[in-house]
């Protein structure tokens, strides 16, 4: 092992030529290893980037081809186009356009977590991975990093870019009279809507961490039928509990981990208070949600941190299983 000083000085000399932290990163064996592990995940699970890009492509095609003849709850185009409603409509469009991305992200995230430690056992490549000087902890950490940091942040960034591009294309078409002037740019509304999405994303990732931990553990531990175990078994356990004991601890727990955080943030009150009428339709004004919601209460919720602790324990257990499991 070279000493840290040697690494730094080597990095400093190459840094002059190739510049910055990039050179430092490639000269630091640990960082280089982690980068390589992350690249491995992206090579192996190509859907992680191909599916989001496909969603963007589809949305942009929609921006080029649709007519924007909206008719929701008997509200017709004239009311959507009313200049007094432009901020609400713009924010609503920004929000609605991100939904496909987040739905795809949820699918990718869950299937990735269920598959990431199972696939290498199934195709027996685990013995190749274990022949390399990479610890089980680093392997599991790289998978958590890809699924719980790279994927959500990448999705957020791509959804944001898609929003901007969609709006730009739409307005170009509107300028030449091909589309109604439905989406009128409003920087404050844009920033507030994106902030709502970002905070929602961060809080979701933290609050749902126990699910992710269980999925990762299932991926590391189960011999087969990973998906079935994490879906059917909790369901049967909840039903069984109700029949056998007449109680509903399991379903209550799952329910709580499903939406407890939003209750504690009083998101419903914020949403209800932000409802505006566009014609006869009731629409949530997202920038107002941003003004009303109490983000800090999410982070002072002890259950959020307990859940993260539980998820960390699951990740630790997954690494231990990978280390000591003897398949044959």
């Amino acid at each position, binding site marked *: 092992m070279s000493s840290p000083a040697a690494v730094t000085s080597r990095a400093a000399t190459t840094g002059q030529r190739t510049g910055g932290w990039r050179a430092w990163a490639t000269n630091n*064996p640990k960082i280089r290893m982690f980068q390589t592990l992350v690249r491995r995940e992206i090579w192996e699970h190509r859907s992680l980037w191909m599916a989001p890009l496909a969603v963007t492509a589809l949305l942009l095609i929609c921006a080029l081809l649709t007519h924007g003849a909206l008719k929701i709850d008997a509200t017709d185009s004239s009311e959507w186009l009313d200049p007094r409603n432009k901020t609400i409509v713009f924010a609503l469009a920004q929000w609605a356009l991100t939904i496909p991305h987040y739905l795809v992200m949820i699918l990718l995230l869950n299937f990735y977590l269920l598959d990431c430690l199972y696939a290498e056992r199934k195709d027996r490549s685990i013995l190749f991975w*274990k022949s390399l000087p*990479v610890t089980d902890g680093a392997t599991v950490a790289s998978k958590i990093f890809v699924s719980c940091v790279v994927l959500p942040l990448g999705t957020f960034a791509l959804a944001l870019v898609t929003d901007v591009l969609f709006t730009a294309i739409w307005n170009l078409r509107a300028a030449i009279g091909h589309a109604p002037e439905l989406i009128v740019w409003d920087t404050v509304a844009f920033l507030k809507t994106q902030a709502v999405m970002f905070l929602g994303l961060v809080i979701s990732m933290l609050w749902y961490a126990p699910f992710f931990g269980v999925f990762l553990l299932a991926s590391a531990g189960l011999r087969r039928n990973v998906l079935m175990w994490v879906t059917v078994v909790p369901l049967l356990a909840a039903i069984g509990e109700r029949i056998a004991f007449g109680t509903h601890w399991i379903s209550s727990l799952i329910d709580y981990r499903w939406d407890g955080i939003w209750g504690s943030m009083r998101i419903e009150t914020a949403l209800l208070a932000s409802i505006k009428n566009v014609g006869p339709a009731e629409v949530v004004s997202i920038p107002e949600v941003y003004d009303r919601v109490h983000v800090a209460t999410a982070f002072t919720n002890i259950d959020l941190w307990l859940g993260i602790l539980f998820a960390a324990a699951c990740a630790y257990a997954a690494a231990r299983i990978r280390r000591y499991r*003897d398949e044959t």
Partner: protein
Amino acid sequence: MTKVIEARGLRKSYGRRTGHSTPALEDVSFSVAPGRIVGLIGPNGAGKTTALKAILGLTSFEGELRVLGLDPRSRRDELMRDVSFIADVAVLPGWLRVGQALELVAGVHTRFNRARAEQFLRRTDIRMRSRVRELSKGMVTQLHLALILSIDAQLLVLDEPTLGLDLLYRRQFYDALLNDFFNAERTILVTTHQVEEVENLFTDVLFINHGRVVLDSSVEGLAERYVQLTVAPDKAAQARALQPFYEREVFGRVVMIFDRPADRWQAPLRPAAELAALGEIRTPSIADLFVAKMEVA
């Protein structure tokens, strides 16, 4: 000089949970010195793979084991910097491209010589853009070997490395192993049940059967200790009086193998001379010796 591998009293059983446990290793002890090429030879199910897994920290076991001075159970992560292995053919993941495989090993292994791996691959028909799943079985093995042989490891462990390869590839592989990888600082441990093929490769052999070491010797040691006598049937009784531990008939002649540990026949030349008077003598091949040892057991 310190040993590369030092094993004392290794034990391992499978299926303890189901009640009837099958011992895979029973009190296995051996040591491997640096710069040797050791053949770990045994029939299927003899415990070879279990022994290798113990050495590589892939399975739990009882007993004492040091590999490069480290206990593979607790210090596997450190050990893997100096040990490389191929556990079985075709364990490279199908989605991996050849170029990605090089990138990957280079990214995680400080002792990987990428230029050398590329040089190996240039001698084959493998293209950088290909995915592992598109390659033939022989090519996958060539790729895996190109990766592993380009790592500057102190110990290389190969479990049935040429299984499923045709003769041409097998020959190329062993040539590469000897010419490009092996040197005085490196140690190679190979398991195989195709003994004939690799006879000339080994400096040491370790026979293992039913979880026990039945022979542990250097190849020179074998020549000193074992004698194979081919004798006409009329002299067979006379030869049998000298207590061969194994005999069989081949084309109407009797082939016997004698074990002469140092304490049994002190004068080194006498037994050989005595046997030579009866028929043709030579050192048994490793394959013949293996068959003899396994059949006696």
